[in-house]
C-alpha cells in the first residue's frame, strides 16, 4: 500500500477544500514531512487517514460532533446542509484507489445535526485509466489491503506509541503479530480444514459398509447349488430312463414265461389302451384351452349385440333406415324434375312435396350400407357364440369319457398285477414285485425332479437380486472411494499447512525477534533486549547473571520498543513476501503515518529513529512540530524527504505571537492572524530548492 494523496473539506480546522496533499512515493525519497504547531491540525491529518479507511479515531482526537469545521457551520444558512469529507488516494498491487468518506450536517436553530455519517465511496482504477465502482463492500476491500485490526501500527500517535507495548495490550499485539506473520491465516486454515474433514468423514460413514465380497460369495454359492442341482437332474433323468429300461425288460421276460404269458399279454393291451386314452385326454384339454383363448369372447358380446339391435331398431322406427331409397336417389329425382313414374316434379306441387318428405326421412346411402353390413356381421357373431359352446361341450365330453375309461382300465390293470404278484410261481411274483418297486422309484424320482426344478428357479431369482445388490454396492464403493480420497487430501493439506505453520512460527518469530532486537539496540543505549515470546507477546528483558527478567521499561524505552517492533514488522514482511514465503494479506509494503513521534525521546534516540525509520518503511509521513524537528532529526531525514508541507494556523486572537519555520534559508509562518472571527488552518506546500 502506497499512499499517494489526501484532501480534506470542512474537516475540523480545515475550512473549505484543501489543495490536494501529494505524498512522497519515490523509493529513495519516500518521506513526507508536514510541519505544524500544536493544535494546527497534525493529529487531524492523522485521523483523516484513519477516518476514511477505518472510520476510527486515535485516542487523542475529539468526538465526531466536532468533525465539521466551525466556520462552515457559522456561514451556513439555517436548514442548509454542510458537507464534510476526506479523500484518500493510494496505490496497491498495480491498481489505484480513491476512497472518500462523507459526513453531511444540517444546521438547525438549536445546533447542528449530523446525518449520513456512513457514506464511504471507493473507486478502483486500473492501468487502462478507467475508474470503477467495486462490487464488494469498500471496507472489505480495504481490510484485505491493510486489515483494520492492524492499522494502529501504521497510523499512530507518536506521543502515545508506547501504548502498543503496554502490559494489557500484549494480547492485541500477539494477535496482530500472528496475523502479520501469516500464522493466523495458517491456524485458521488448519482448523477449518479439520472441520471440513470431519464433515467428510461423517458423510463417509453414512454411505455404508463394503460387503461386495460377501455378496459375490453368496452369488457363487447359489450358482454352485444350481450346478449341483442341474447335475442331479441329469442323473435323475438317466436313472428314470434306466428304470424304464428295466421295466421294459421285465415286461418282455414275463411274456416269455409261459405261465404268465396270458396275463402279461392282457396287461400290455390294457396299458396300451390306457395310453391312448391319456393322449386323448391331454389333446382334449389342449383343445379346450385353445378354444377359450381364441373364441371365448363371442359369448361375452351379448350385451353389446343387444345394444346394437336397440340402436338399429330406433333408427328403423324413426324411419332413417328406409331400405332402398337413399337421399342421393331422391335428390337426383328432384334435380331431374321427373319422378320415376313420369310425374313432373314442380316445386309446391303435391308430388314434389311428397318427394321432399321422403327426402327428409331418407337415409344417407353410406350409413345405410354400413348398418346393413354390421347387421350381417353381428348375426354371424351371434351364431359363433352358439358354435363356441357346442365345441366346448364336445371337448368336455371327450375329457369326461377319457377319464372314465382311464379309471376303469387302471382298475383292471391293477387286478392283473395283483394276480401276478400273488402268483404261486415265485419267479413271476418276484418279477411283479420288482415292477412295483420300479414304479414307486420312478414316481419318487419324478417328484424330486419337480422339486429340483423349483429350487433352481428360486436360486436363479436369488442370483438376480444379489446381482442388483452388487451393482448398488459398486456405486457405494465408488462414492466411498471418492470420499476417502477427499479425506486423504484434506489430511495431507492439513499436514502440510501444519508444517508451514510450525516452520513459519518458529522461523518468522525468531527472525522478527532478531530484527526487532537489532533495531532496538541501534537506537537504544540500554542493555535491554526485546523478545517475542511463544505466545507472541512483545516484552523487554534484561539478563542479569544469566537470568532473564522482564524490564519495567520507561516511556521512552517503550516508545523505542514500539517503533522497533513496527520497523521490524515492516522490514520482515517485505522480505518474506519477496521470497514468497508468506501467507499474509497481500500488502507487502506498509506506509507509516506518524504524528509527533519524537517527543519524549532523548537526542541520541531521536537521531537513531530518524535515521532508521525512513529506511525501514516503504513510505513515511511524519507530522512534526518545530521542537520535534530539531537538528538531528532534520539532518538524518533530509536525504529521504520527497515532499514538505506547512500547516499555518490562523488565530482569531488579537495578540498573535510570531512563529516561523526556517527551511532552506526561507522563513515560513506557522501562525498568522485570522481575517475573521474564526480559527482555521491552511496547508501549503513547501517548495524544494
Amino acid at each position, binding site marked *: 500500500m502506497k499512499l499517494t494523496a489526501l484532501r480534506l473539506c470542512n474537516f475540523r480546522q480545515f475550512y473549505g477544500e484543501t489543495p490536494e496533499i501529494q505524498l512522497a512515493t519515490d523509493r529513495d525519497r519516500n518521506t513526507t514531512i508536514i510541519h505544524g504547531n500544536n493544535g494546527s491540525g497534525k493529529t487531524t491529518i492523522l485521523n483523516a487517514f484513519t477516518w476514511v479507511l477505518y472510520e476510527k479515531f486515535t485516542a487523542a482526537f475529539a468526538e465526531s460532533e466536532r468533525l465539521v469545521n466551525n466556520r462552515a457551520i457559522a456561514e451556513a444558512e439555517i436548514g442548509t446542509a454542510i458537507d464534510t469529507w476526506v479523500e484518500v488516494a493510494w496505490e496497491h498491487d498495480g491498481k489505484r484507489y480513491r476512497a472518500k468518506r462523507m459526513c453531511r450536517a444540517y444546521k438547525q436553530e438549536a445546533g447542528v445535526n449530523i446525518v449520513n455519517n456512513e457514506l464511504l465511496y471507493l473507486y478502483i482504477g486500473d492501468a487502462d485509466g478507467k475508474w470503477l465502482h467495486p462490487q464488494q463492500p469498500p471496507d472489505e476491500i480495504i481490510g484485505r489491503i491493510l486489515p483494520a485490526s492492524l492499522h494502529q501500527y501504521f497510523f499512530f500517535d507518536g506521543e502515545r506509541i508506547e501504548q502498543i507495548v503496554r502490559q494489557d495490550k500484549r494480547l492485541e499485539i500477539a494477535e496482530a503479530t500472528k496475523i502479520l506473520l501469516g500464522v493466523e*491465516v495458517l491456524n485458521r486454515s488448519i482448523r477449518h480444514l479439520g472441520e471440513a474433514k470431519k464433515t467428510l468423514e461423517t458423510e463417509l460413514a453414512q454411505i455404508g459398509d463394503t460387503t461386495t465380497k460377501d455378496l459375490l460369495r453368496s452369488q457363487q454359492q447359489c450358482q454352485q447349488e444350481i450346478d449341483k442341482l442341474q447335475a442331479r437332474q441329469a442323473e435323475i433323468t438317466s436313472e428314470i430312463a434306466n428304470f424304464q429300461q428295466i421295466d421294459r425288460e421285465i415286461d418282455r421276460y414275463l411274456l416269455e414265461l409261459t405261465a404268465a404269458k396270458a396275463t402279461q399279454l392282457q396287461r400290455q393291451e390294457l396299458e396300451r389302451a390306457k395310453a391312448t386314452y391319456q393322449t386323448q385326454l391331454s389333446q382334449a384339454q389342449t383343445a379346450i384351452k385353445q378354444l377359450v383363448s381364441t373364441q371365448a369372447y363371442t359369448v361375452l358380446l351379448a350385451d353389446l349385440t343387444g345394444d346394437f339391435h336397440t340402436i338399429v331398431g330406433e333408427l328403423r322406427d324413426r324411419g332413417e333406415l328406409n331400405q332402398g331409397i337413399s337421399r342421393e336417389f331422391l335428390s337426383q329425382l328432384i334435380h331431374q324434375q321427373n319422378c320415376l313414374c313420369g310425374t313432373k316434379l314442380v316445386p309446391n306441387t303435391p308430388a314434389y312435396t311428397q318427394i321432399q318428405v321422403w327426402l327428409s326421412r331418407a337415409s344417407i346411402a353410406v350409413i345405410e350400407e354400413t348398418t346393413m353390413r354390421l347387421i350381417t356381421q353381428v348375426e354371424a357373431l351371434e351364431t359363433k357364440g352358439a358354435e363356441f359352446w357346442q365345441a366346448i361341450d364336445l371337448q368336455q365330453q371327450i375329457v369326461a369319457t377319457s377319464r372314465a375309461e382311464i379309471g376303469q382300465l387302471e382298475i383292471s390293470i391293477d387286478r392283473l398285477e395283483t394276480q401276478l404278484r400273488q402268483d404261486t410261481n415265485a419267479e413271476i411274483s418276484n418279477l411283479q414285485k420288482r415292477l412295483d418297486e420300479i414304479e414307486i422309484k420312478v414316481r419318487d424320482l419324478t417328484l424330486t425332479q419337480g422339486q429340483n426344478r423349483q429350487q433352481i428357479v428360486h436360486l436363479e431369482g436369488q442370483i438376480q437380486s444379489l446381482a442388483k445388490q452388487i451393482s448398488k454396492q459398486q456405486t457405494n464403493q465408488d462414492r466411498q472411494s471418492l470420499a476417502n480420497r477427499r479425506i486423504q487430501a484434506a489430511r495431507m493439506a492439513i499436514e502440510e499447512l501444519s508444517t508451514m505453520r510450525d516452520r513459519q512460527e518458529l522461523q518468522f518469530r525468531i527472525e522478527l525477534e532478531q530484527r526487532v532486537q537489532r533495531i532496538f539496540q541501534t537506537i537504544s543505549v540500554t542493555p535491554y533486549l526485546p523478545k517475542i515470546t511463544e505466545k507472541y507477546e512483545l516484552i523487554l528483558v534484561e539478563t542479569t547473571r544469566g537470568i532473564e527478567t522482564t524490564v519495567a521499561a520507561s516511556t521512552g524505552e517503550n516508545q523505542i520498543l514500539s517503533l522497533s517492533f513496527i520497523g521490524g514488522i515492516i522490514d520482515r514482511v517485505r522480505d518474506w513476501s519477496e521470497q514468497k514465503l508468506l501467507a499474509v494479506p497481500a500488502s507487502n509494503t506498509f506506509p507509516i503515518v506518524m504524528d509527533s513521534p519524537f517527543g519524549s525521546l532523548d537526542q541520541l534516540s531521536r537521531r537513531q529513529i530518524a535515521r532508521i525509520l525512513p529506511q525501514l518503511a516503504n513510505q513515511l509521513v511524519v507530522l512534526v512540530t518545530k521542537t520535534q524537528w530539531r537538528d538531528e532529526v532534520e539532518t538524518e531525514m533530509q536525504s529521504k524527504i520527497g515532499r514538505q508541507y506547512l500547516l499555518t494556523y490562523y488565530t482569531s486572537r488579537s495578540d498573535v505571537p510570531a512563529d516561523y519555520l526556517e527551511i532552506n534559508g526561507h522563513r515560513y509562518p506557522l501562525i498568522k492572524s485570522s481575517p475573521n472571527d474564526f480559527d482555521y488552518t491552511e496547508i501549503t506546500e513547501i517548495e524544494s530548492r
Partner: protein
Amino acid sequence: MTPNLTPAVRQIIERVLQLEKDRLDRKKNSPINDDILKIIKEAIG
C-alpha cells in the same frame, strides 16, 4: 511447500489460504465449512 504433494492437494492449500486471507478482516463471517468443502470437492472429484 514440500515437493511431493499432488497437484490436487496443492490446489486445496492455495485456495484455502486465499480464502482465509480474504476473510481475515471481516467482522461478520459466513460459515466457512461449505466453502472449504467446495474447495476440496472441486480439487478431487
